[in-house]
């Protein structure tokens, strides 16, 4: 077990290194220049050259690459070209907003999705099941950014009850603590609803499928034969066993805590990592893009590993997947 874990971790490290290397060279060979974005179109060729020299962008690309790697592993993630602030500060400022939004939406969408899927499996084939299936497959298909716009249209423009932009009102600094909390919750309501509704579509469909697959298993028949009520069989026996793959899914959604809400953040001007990333890519802000890519890839690898470990721990028959 430990050897396999180590092998997987090593392979994961290789993957992260590969992704980062690929991104580095793709960035450098692609058209676009961060210095032109920084200085604007009025800059002379000399000014551009000087600025490039200051940023070290005039050195050979392999030299830049080794320099970046050696600084990155020592924890120096560089300074954002567009913002002039350390990359770590830029990401550290944005991360909490994304974690708050995506983490809460993951929690809600799995809790509600599990409940909906279990009700569907319990009343399989009934009208309730069909109606819920129609709803979940639609939610599953809706693009987040469009659902967000529709919610803004209804709740902000027509009903005028909820704000549509940012994480806090302009007057947030002058409010009492309680007022600030309410203000924050009101700002989070629409993006959270968007992400959660879409998430429910996926998780309910998944749980319903998993529980239907289990419903013909011997242990379910045994539970019925013991004379347990159908309700008890569904909730205590089938659902519990259907939850193992959900743990895997939760592990796989670890990276979404970092970069999982790019579009929804764009719609609601939510000050999170997604927005930082889109801005950085558009401004060719190399250090920010590189750091964000490295963190994302790292989280994907850790999430996969975590999912396997948790699944093996919950169900010893599964065992660890080979590297």
């Amino acid at each position, binding site marked *: 077990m430990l050897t396999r874990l180590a092998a997987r971790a090593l392979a994961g490290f290789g993957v992260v290194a590969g992704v980062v290397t690929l991104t580095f060279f793709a960035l450098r060979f692609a058209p676009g220049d961060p210095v032109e974005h920084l200085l604007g179109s009025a800059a002379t060729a000399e000014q551009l050259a000087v600025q490039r020299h200051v940023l070290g962008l005039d050195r050979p690309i392999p030299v830049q690459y080794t320099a970046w790697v050696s600084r990155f592993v020592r924890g120096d993630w560089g300074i954002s070209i567009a913002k002039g602030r350390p990359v770590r500060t830029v990401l550290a400022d944005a991360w909490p907003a994304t974690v708050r939004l995506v983490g809460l939406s993951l929690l809600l969408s799995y809790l509600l999705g599990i409940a909906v899927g279990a009700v569907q499996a319990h009343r399989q084939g009934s009208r309730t099941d069909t109606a819920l299936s129609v709803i979940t497959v639609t939610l599953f298909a809706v*693009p987040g950014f469009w659902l967000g716009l529709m919610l803004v249209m209804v709740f902000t423009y027509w009903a005028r009850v909820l704000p549509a932009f940012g994480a806090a009102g302009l007057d947030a600094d002058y409010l009492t603590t309680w007022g600030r909390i309410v203000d924050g919750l009101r700002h989070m309501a629409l993006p959270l609803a968007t992400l959660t509704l879409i998430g429910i579509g996926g998780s309910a469909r*998944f749980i319903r499928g998993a529980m239907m697959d289990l419903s013909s298993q011997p242990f379910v028949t045994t539970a019925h034969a013991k004379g347990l009520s159908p309700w008890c069989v569904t909730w205590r026996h089938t659902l519990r066993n259907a939850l193992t793959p959900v743990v895997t899914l939760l592990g796989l*959604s670890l990276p979404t805590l970092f970069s999982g809400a790019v579009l929804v953040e764009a719609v609601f001007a939510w000050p999170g990592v997604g927005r930082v*990333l889109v801005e950085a890519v558009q401004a060719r802000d190399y250090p920010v893009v590189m750091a964000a*890519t490295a963190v994302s890839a790292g989280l994907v690898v850790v999430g996969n590993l975590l999912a396997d470990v948790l699944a093996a721990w919950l169900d010893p028959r599964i065992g660890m997947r080979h590297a």
Partner: protein
Amino acid sequence: MRRLLRDRRGLFGVVVLAAALVFAAAAPLVTRGDPNAQRDIVATRFVAPLSSDATGVYHVLGTDRFGRDVWTRLVYGARVSLGVGLLAVLISIALGVTVGALAGYGRGPVPLALLGLTDFALAVPRVVLLLLLAALWRPSTALVIIVLGLTGWMSVARLVHGEVRALAARPFVEGAVASGARRLRVLVRHILPNALTPVIVAAALGVGNAITLEASLSFLGLGVQPPTPSWGNMIASGRDVLVNAPWVATAPGAALVIVVVACTLLGDAVRDALEPSVVSHQPVS
């Protein structure tokens, strides 16, 4: 096929997708004029659905801020969105089947290398990759197709790999090998045709996914560029006028949802009709 059409989900999927394809193909017949045509903007802009503009022309779905007919743009946009979705999935299926087949039936270091490549590509954060690729080169329709195709083949490769491995041990394959067929022939003529069931399901789901991703990229301005209509950039253009012309963003989004639902239901129905419990449905973020 008959079993598929008896399933309500399959019937819905087939009918909706067929209708969308017919409308897209026959766009000049079911609409009036050029999707990008602008006439007297002041007289024709923001006409509400089901009403006529100042010049007496009737608009089923209204007009946008340049007085362009939303229905016309929606149908021409279907050409772009469906085309992008289908072509991107074609690329990912071709790549995925090739990689999966070689990894499942190849010899020597090839399978290991291909499986490693698949795992590697799966670990690349897709959204980040899409943003990067789409933002770094000049956005265009062809680029979107290639980017979506190149980032969507891994799950197909995994599926095909598993199927091919399982089929390779079956008696009919041993029979083909024993009768002296070359390995490539065994793979292409005997194994692959039997391994394609999950690929059909993955393709149906993949088209829906690709259409959504195209819309997402176009919404961010990194995909299909205006004035060429695509459902994504139509939604983006309706974003600023949500208050006074909500139909501009609503119509293409609703069309997109209906088509993606049709793809998903068709995929579900095909899976149930051909082989139960082959593909698990993973949530798409």
